[in-house]
C-alpha cells in the first residue's frame, strides 16, 4: 500500500528561551520584536512525520499554520526539515490574538478532508497557551480515533500501535488509520534544519489561504479580561521546633 499522507500542524510561538513580558495595558504579552519559533512539540511532530517518510511509511507531508504573515517563516522551517508542501491560513494579527483551539481544529479538519490526509499529527500543546485541546478537538470534528501524548509510534498490520505517556505510566494502544496523533516530548529529537535543505525549501510550494476558504468563522468565543504576572513568591521562614511552627501558623490565622 502506498504511504500515508500526513498533515502536520505548526504553530508559531514566542521562543522558549525568551523572557516573556506582560504588556503595560494588561491585554496580553509583548510580541513585537520578540524572537518567535515553531512550537517545540510541533517540531517533534514534523520530525516524526519526516522519519515516517524516510521509513517509507508516509508518502507526502503537508504542514499547516494559522496566523499572521510571519507564520510563513515557521512553515519554511518545516519545509527545510523535510515537509513536502505547506499551507498558510492567514489571519489578521488582531484576529489571531483571539483565535482559539476550536477555530484551529475546525480549519485543520477541513484541510484534512480536502487533502485526503490519512494522519494528522500535532504537538500535544502549545507552549504559549498550554491548551492541550487542538488535537482532541480535531479528532472529534473528523470523527477519527485519537492517540494523544504519543511517545512511540509504530506500524502494525495497517494500523498504528502508539505508546502513550499518561499519569500512571506508559499505555500502548492500537488505532485505526485515519487517526489524529499528538506528540509528546520523548517521541523523538528534532533534527537541525541544514542549510542545504533551507536552500531547497525555497523551491517547495507554499500556498496562502483564508479561514473563509474553508468556511470557518473565526470570530472570538472568548474575551481576555486581563493578563498579569504571577504573584512574586514570598520568602519563607525557618522554624526550630514543631511548637514554634504551630504558634506561627496560629498567628497567621491559618490554624
Amino acid at each position, binding site marked *: 500500500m502506498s504511504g500515508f499522507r500526513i498533515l502536520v500542524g505548526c504553530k508559531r510561538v514566542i521562543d522558549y528561551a525568551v523572557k516573556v513580558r506582560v504588556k503595560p495595558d494588561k491585554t496580553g504579552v509583548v510580541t513585537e*520584536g520578540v524572537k518567535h*519559533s515553531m512550537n517545540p512539540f510541533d517540531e517533534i511532530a514534523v520530525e516524526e512525520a519526516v522519519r515516517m517518510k524516510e521509513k517509507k511509511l508516509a508518502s507526502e507531508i503537508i504542514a499547516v499554520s494559522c496566523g499572521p504573515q510571519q507564520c510563513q*517563516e515557521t512553515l*519554511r*522551517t518545516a519545509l*527545510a526539515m523535510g515537509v513536502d508542501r505547506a499551507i498558510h491560513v492567514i489571519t489578521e494579527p488582531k484576529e489571531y490574538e483571539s483565535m482559539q483551539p476550536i477555530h484551529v481544529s475546525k480549519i485543520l479538519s477541513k484541510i484534512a478532508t480536502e487533502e485526503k490526509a490519512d494522519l494528522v499529527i500535532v504537538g500535544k500543546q502549545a507552549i504559549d497557551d498550554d491548551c492541550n485541546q487542538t488535537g482532541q478537538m480535531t479528532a472529534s470534528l473528523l470523527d477519527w480515533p485519537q492517540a494523544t501524548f504519543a511517545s512511540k509510534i509504530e506500524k502494525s498490520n495497517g494500523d498504528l500501535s502508539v505508546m502513550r505517556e499518561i499519569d500512571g505510566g506508559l499505555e500502548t494502544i492500537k488505532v485505526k488509520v485515519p487517526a489524529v496523533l499528538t506528540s509528546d516530548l520523548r517521541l523523538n529529537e528534532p533534527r*537541525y*534544519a*541544514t*542549510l*542545504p535543505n*533551507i*536552500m531547497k525549501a*525555497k523551491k517547495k510550494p507554499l500556498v496562502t489561504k483564508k479561514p473563509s476558504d474553508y468556511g470557518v468563522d473565526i470570530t472570538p468565543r472568548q474575551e481576555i479580561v486581563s493578563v498579569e504576572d504571577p504573584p512574586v513568591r514570598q520568602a519563607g521562614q525557618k522554624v526550630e521546633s514543631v511548637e514554634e511552627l504551630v504558634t506561627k501558623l496560629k498567628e497567621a490565622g491559618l490554624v
Partner: protein
Amino acid sequence: MLRASVLRLFSQPIRQTVYLRECLDTTAFPNTLKLYSTQTAVKEQPGTTVSEKEAEETRIGKRRPLENAPFIRELFLGRFAKEMLVYPEMTKEELEHLNQMVQPIEKFFNEGLDSKTIDVNAKIPDEVLQSLKDLGLFGQQIPEEYGGLGLNATEFARLAEITALDGSIAVTLAAHQSIGLKGILIAGTAQQKAKYLPKLATGEHVAAFCLTEPSSGSDAASIQTRATLSEDGKTFLLNGGKIWISNGGIADIFTVFAKTKVTVDGVEKDKVTAFIVEREFGGITSGKPEDKLGIRGSNTCEVHFDNTPVPLENVIGEVGGGFKVAMNILNSGRFSMGSSGAGILKKLIGMTCEHAVSRKQFGSPLAEFGLIQEKFAQMTITTYAMESMAYLTAGVIDLYEKPDVSLEAAIVKVFSSEGCWSCVNECLQILGGLGYMKDYPYERYLRDGRILMIFEGTNEILRLFVALEGMKYAGKELKDAVKIARNPWKNPGVAWKMYKKAVSRQFSSKKRKSENAVSVHQPYNSKLKLHQSLHNTLQYEALLLEGCTEAFQKVVEHLLITHGKEIISAQMDLAKVSNIVIDLYGMTACLSRSNRSYCLGLQNADHEIMLTKAFCKDATKRINTNLKEIYSGPVENNSENYEHIAQAVFKHGGYAASHPLERMW
C-alpha cells in the same frame, strides 16, 4: 551671510529626504561609480573596458557595476569616495532567507557544543565535524551548482559571527574554505571546479592551504618547495616541507605553493606556482598535531611532499602566477574576521555585563564604578566599529563584479584582531579572579584570539602593506610634484612657488597655536562636503572626518617628499600612517552605519549615534597624535632612539644594561 544661513535652514530637510531616497535606492551606486570606472578600470587594466551593453545593464540595475572606487587608496590623495557613506542594504527576501539560515547554526553552536572539552582534548569530535558538514558549513561560498550554498560575502560574514563562538571550529572551517579551496574557486578552470568542488562542498573532502615553510613565513615569495616538470611535460614532481598547516592532518585536497622554473623574456627564473594536490597522489606525509596555546581543537601540523606527482592540469592559474593567486586568496577571506570578532565580543560583553550588574563590592554593583564603565564603553565602541567596517567591506564586495577591497580587508583584519585581543582581555579583567579560571570561557577566548594577530598575514606586514600600497598609489599622481620638491635646484621656479605655498600654509593656520594637526572646517567652507551625505546630527563628526582626511593627505605628501624611495624602509613612520588610515576607515564605517540606523529609525539608533560620536572623538585624538609624531621627525618622536636601543640589544645578544646592583669596586 543672512541669506546663506536662511538658505541653509530650508535646504536641510530637503537634503535629508533626498539622501533618504538615495539611501534606500540601491541603484544609486552605479551612477556615482562611472567616475571611477573610467579613471581606474580603463587606464590600469586595458582588458576590462566596459562595453556599451554592460554599461546599460549596469545603469538599469540588471548587472552589478564592474569595479568599486578604490576608497582607501584615494584617501591617500585626500579624495573621499562618498558612496562609502551609504551603508549597504539587503532586500527583504535576502534578509529573511539569511535569518532563516542563521537559526539552526545558532542553535547548534549555543546548545550542541562543548567547547571546553574540545579545548582540553585538543580535538574536535568526529560527530561534531560530521554535524558541521551536514549543516552545510563546509561549502558556504561554493556555488549552488557544485553543491554548495553559494553565499555572498555579507551572508558569509553573518554566519562567521556564529561559527566564531568556538575558535577551533572557526579556524577548521576557515582553513578549509576561506583559504584551502578558495584558489579553485577564484582561479580554477571549469574542469577543476567540476572535479573538486562537489566533494569539498559536502565535506567529504577537507581542504588545506600549504604556503608557510620553516624559512618562509611573512616572506612568502622565498619558499623553497620545488615542483620540477617531468621529461614528458605532463607531470610536476613536488618536493619540500610545509609547516603549521591548519587541517594538515585531516585534509584530502591541498592547495600547495612551490617554486617552478619559468622562462621570462628568455631568462630562466624561479617563480611560485599554485597546485591542487590530492593526498591520493602519494608521497604526502603529515606530522603529529602541534600543541598550541589556543585553537587547540584545530589540527595543525607539518606536511611533507616526497616526489609527489601532480598532473599539469592541476596548476591553478598560470605556471609562475602562484604568488598572485596566494595574495588574492588571502585578500578575499580577511574581511570576515571583523564579523567573527564582533560575534565573540557581543557574546562576551553580554556575559560580562551580567556580572558587572550583579556583583557588588564596597556596597555598589561594579557597574557604578567609573573604571568599569570606561572599560565597557571602550569595548562597545570597538565592537561597533569592527562590525560596521566588516559589513561595509562585505557589502562593497557584493555590490561589484570585480571588487578590489584588498586594503579595506587588511584594515578590517588588523583592527579586529587587535580589538578582539584587548577587549577579551578587558572582559577577563572585569571578571577578576573568575576570569582567570578555566571554568569560565574568558581565558579560552583570549588564548584562541591570540592567533588572530599572527595568521593570515601578521598585523605588522598588513600595516606596511596598507601604507606602502597607498603611498605607491598617491606617489604615481604626485610623482612630478615629489620629484621637484626633492630636487628643488633642477626646477627652481616651481620649487620656489611650492615652498612659498607650504610656508604660508604653516603661518596662516591659526591652529598652529593649538597643538592640533587636524583643522576642522565650518560647513560653509568645507571642500569635501561630507556632511551633506549624512544626517544633521552627525554634522560635526563629518567635518572631523573631512579634517582628518585633509590632514592625512598632507602628511602623505610630506612623507613622500621627506623619504622619496626610502619610504619603503621607514617602517615606524609607515605604521603610523597605517594607524591613521585604520581610524579613517573606522570613522567612515561608523558614520555610514549609524546614519542609516538613525534615518531608518532602527531600535536604539540614538545609542549608535553616541557610539559613533565617541569613536570619532577618540579616533581624531589618535590621528592627531600620529600626525604630530610623524611631523616632529625621528628625533622628537623617539624613532631614532628606538633604533639605537634595538641595535644595542642585538649586538649584546640580549638585555644590555648592567644589573642595578652591580658596581665596580
